[in-house]
């Protein structure tokens, strides 16, 4: 049996998916990337060996910002292409708009006939990314899921700074002013949703399915707010955070050895 392996080393988490020859998912691995992508890649290799992967009959495609740190990869493919491919597979559609809110960047990808047609990434800035939410959750001394839960009961606050560092001081002054935590949480999620919606506006979302992948797709509240801002039902899937790894594994399937 051929093992098609996709390894997506993101800035926060490393995601690995093993597909069999019929594109069925055999294994999913999720671990923090840590400070060394190379060590993470080695740890993934060990784990896959434990799981019984036959390296003589395996093709590996690496993606994500740490893609060049996987020495045993047969090929590197950018996360844009992999997320596009992976999302098509997960959501069963060849025409789809993918919103991937990752640790250090947010991507919007337009896919037509299964091929990436256009994409936008945020620039040199962590506003509107997973990191932004993490930092804000930290400032509010809550976990990410608690932040979303709180936000769903809040309202009335808006964070105006587009920069994470300034936004953090804005949040601190809101705390100092005695603003309710749930309202601040609302403002935090609302700012990320608005930022993504603005980017989406530049990509001309036209009547295609919209899906959310990456670490935030498990948070139902984020998804609901995004749907409202985009005036379009944003789809999620339990495998959403593996979209990049699945896309990489699908690319691995076309490698001839």
């Amino acid at each position, binding site marked *: 049996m051929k093992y098609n392996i996709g390894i997506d080393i993101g800035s926060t988490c490393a995601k690995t998916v093993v597909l069999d020859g019929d594109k069925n998912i055999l294994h999913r691995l999720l671990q923090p990337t840590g400070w060394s992508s190379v060590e993470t890649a080695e740890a993934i290799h060990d784990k896959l060996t434990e799981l019984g992967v036959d390296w003589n009959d395996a093709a590996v495609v690496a993606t994500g910002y740490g893609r060049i740190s996987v020495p045993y990869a047969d090929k590197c493919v*950018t996360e844009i*292409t992999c997320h596009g491919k992976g999302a098509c597979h997960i959501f069963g559609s060849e025409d789809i708009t993918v919103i991937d809110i990752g640790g250090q960047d947010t991507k919007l990808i337009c896919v037509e006939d299964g091929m990436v047609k256009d994409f936008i990434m945020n620039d040199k800035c962590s506003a509107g990314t997973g990191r932004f939410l993490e930092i804000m959750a930290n400032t509010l001394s809550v976990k990410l899921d608690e932040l979303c839960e709180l936000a769903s009961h809040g309202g009335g606050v808006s964070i105006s700074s587009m920069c994470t560092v300034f936004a953090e001081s804005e949040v601190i002054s809101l705390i100092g002013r005695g603003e309710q935590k749930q309202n601040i949480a609302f403002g935090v999620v609302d700012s990320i949703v608005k930022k993504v919606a603005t980017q989406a506006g530049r990509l001309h979302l036209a009547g295609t399915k919209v899906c959310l992948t990456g670490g935030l797709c498990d948070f139902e509240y984020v998804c609901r707010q995004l749907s409202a801002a985009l005036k379009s039902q944003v789809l999620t899937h339990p495998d959403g955070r593996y979209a990049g790894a699945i896309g990489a594994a699908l690319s691995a399937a076309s490698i001839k050895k």
Partner: protein
Amino acid sequence: MSEIKLPQDFVSYPEARKQAFMKLKALKESGRRVVGTFCTYTPQELVDAADATPVSLCAIGEDNIPPAEKVLPKNLCPLIKASFGGAVTDRCPFFYFSDMVLAETTCDGKKKMYEYLGKIKHTHVMQLPPGQFGEGALAFWKSEVEALRKDLEQFYGITISDEKIAEAIKLRNRERKAILNYYKVGALKPSPLSGYELNTIITSNEYAFDIEKKIEFLEKRTAELTEKYHKEYEGKPSRPRVLISGCPTHGVIDKVIKRIEELGADVVGFENCCGPREKADLVDETKDPITAIAEKYLRINCSVMSPNPGRLETLGNMIDEYKADGVIEVVLMACHTFAAETSTVKDFVTKEKGIPFLSITTDYSTTDQGQIDTRLGAFIELMS
């Protein structure tokens, strides 16, 4: 003549910079006048007619930016900051050895920076009209060309005759044709030369001192490359072909142009001021030279002009001529006029020309290389 000195900390300069200094020093010692210039709007023919050599002061290099930020705001285009930083620190040999600076009111950032340069050295700023088509635009610009002639005459204590300008026009037109023909090698499919070479040779000041030599060099290189194409490239498969558009790219040549080629595509042409933007359009040799110069330079399709329909027309022609598979627009951070045109250009390229388009905003730092690589890589994957 007073002795021509080098900057005080010259010994600490890197080798390439030292060589540029020595070359310029030798040029000055030969008695040649040197005028520092910035944009393609500079009527080079007038500088030539003053028996001066125009040298480009548009600078690159991240190390030139911190000294500039002592005076200029952080949120300003890196080209403006690097040019100013190189000038005030004596690191830029071209500024250092320039007798005077010749600039134009192109963008807001540049014209305000020129006010500071003017405190260091005689700086003649030509006033550009904000658009090419407004009533009186050409007449106004022509009066600015005349004013430049007077200032050059006064500054150097010379007289610039019409005949001398007409002679310079003929020589520069020949140079334009040589440059254009060299660029057109990139239109061959598959391209026998790298975009890295294209960008480097044209923006290199090295050949600029002697125009006849430059023409000779370019004609030779064009012939070599054309021969190489017929021998080694013709009929072979081509990698995806990329046309560059937008801001000048000489400051991001390693982080963008070279990377595109390393990641698997060919950069075949430049629709920016490092490319044939200004070269494709000759100065009319039959008209009164000042009128002909004014007309020619006002036709340049820079985003500082509003409106700027010529850019789309040129881009469309170049996409066809250079057989481009995609367009990558490079916008330097805080270049408002190019950034504002992005949306129009994207619509034109994707809808009217039907090929993919990517816009990248960046500066001279290397901190965003990872993000740039991902964007370029993904764009090349979608063209492949």
